[in-house]
């Protein structure tokens, strides 16, 4: 596997236009048609320093419904986009920590509302910082816009529990992107942790395991070239581009990363992310579980 990232255009991706490199972002910091968005796991990271002009979208506060387990609705999405000064024709570029894990999650939620003019900064924060590029603490304040969103479309890229059950019964491919320990059911819920506990360990019957971060070069957080991704997902897991595929993890964040890789970098047209994931499946009464 390569350790130095080649230019995005030379990596053989199906949709290379969905990625931009750090230099592209540096060249568009003052572009009024581009909004740079940071989405992190660490809630202090954006405040500790971010790309000049970047706004923050927090996965809990901004993207999740505050009461029930679901994503924000159309009205809240419109409010979010208006607050961060985005219009429907503006290009949004996501980046973040942990190999762009949360950036792809935010990207995925934006796709539920059809904001297709979206990109990921290859390498995320890690690469930007490693290149010694500037980070600032000043929080930008953009003029409010009046964003009118499409209705949230959960049918295309999102999978729900009963759909996953039918998918499993039809023996269609499921990709479990958690760690091998979680996949084998050796690790269930975390001791003393008040959230996201799971009563049963294991995986959805028939699912194959490919930890999400294998798609990324750990040195600089960039995505691996298409040939290496094909090796992982087509040769090792046996997926076919025409397959209907569902990805899952614990709460749907890591699997949104794999959804991004399969959909945009390898060009598989029928991939959905099961955001209920193991915290729903492993807690549901009577659902089948496979455990070695």
């Amino acid at each position: 596997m390569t350790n130095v990232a080649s230019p995005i255009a030379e990596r053989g991706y199906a949709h290379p236009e969905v990625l931009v490199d750090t230099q592209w972002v540096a060249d568009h910091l003052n572009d009024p048609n581009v909004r740079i968005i940071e989405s992190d796991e660490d809630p202090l990271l954006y405040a500790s320093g971010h790309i000049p002009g970047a706004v923050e979208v927090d996965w809990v506060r901004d993207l999740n419904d505050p009461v029930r387990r679901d994503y924000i609705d159309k009205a809240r999405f419109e409010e979010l986009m208006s607050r961060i000064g985005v219009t429907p024709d503006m290009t949004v570029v996501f980046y973040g920590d942990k190999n762009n894990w949360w950036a792809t999650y935010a990207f995925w939620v934006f796709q539920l509302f059809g904001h297709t003019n979206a990109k990921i900064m290859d390498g995320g924060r890690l690469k930007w910082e490693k290149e010694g590029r500037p980070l600032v603490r000043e929080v930008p304040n953009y003029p409010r816009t009046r964003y009118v969103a499409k209705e949230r479309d959960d049918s295309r890229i999102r999978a729900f529990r009963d759909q996953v059950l039918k998918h499993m019964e039809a023996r269609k491919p499921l990709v479990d992107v958690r760690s091998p320990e979680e996949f084998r059911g050796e690790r269930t819920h975390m001791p003393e942790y008040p959230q996201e506990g799971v009563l049963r360990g294991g995986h959805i019957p028939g699912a194959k395991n490919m930890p999400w971060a294998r798609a990324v070069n750990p040195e600089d957080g960039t995505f691996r070239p298409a040939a290496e991704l094909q090796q992982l997902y087509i040769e090792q897991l046996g997926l076919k581009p025409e397959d209907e595929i569902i990805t899952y993890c614990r709460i749907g964040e890591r699997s949104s990363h794999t959804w991004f890789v399969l959909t945009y970098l390898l060009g598989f047209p029928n991939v959905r992310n099961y955001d209920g994931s193991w915290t729903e499946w492993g807690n549901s009464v009577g659902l089948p579980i496979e455990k070695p």
Partner: protein
Amino acid sequence: MTAIPEPLARLLHEVEGLDRFERQQLLLEFADEFREVPPEVAERPFPEENYVTRCESQAYVFARPNPDGTLKFYFAVENPQGVSAKSWAVIMDRTLSGQPLESVLAVPPDVIFRIYGNEISMGKGQGLMGMLDHVKMLAARTLRERRSEG
């Protein structure tokens, strides 16, 4: 029931009165003050036994005895993006170093959520709890050794 260390109780009280932005600024100030474990206490490669297994920020915890029988805690955070881990290390040093070991053992894991907010992710919460557990483990070990000597 043993009370938690007084400096930690004061911090919890202070944080409860802050809005999200103020809390974030306070935590960042702590992170900015992070100083890694000095070489006279530990040098790289840091020993495996000091590694916090549940922390993705690659944190290490060390302790040295104070003359009064309490412990001074030291930390290393190898992930440069581990801002929360660094702020938590500073908070634990300020509020748990030099405190009676029984009171250190009385610190419940939910203080992390009271300080950082309930919205922190599972991974982040786990990591910070792992650091606290390691501090408590070192405190418990010191108490045990002292009792067996006594």
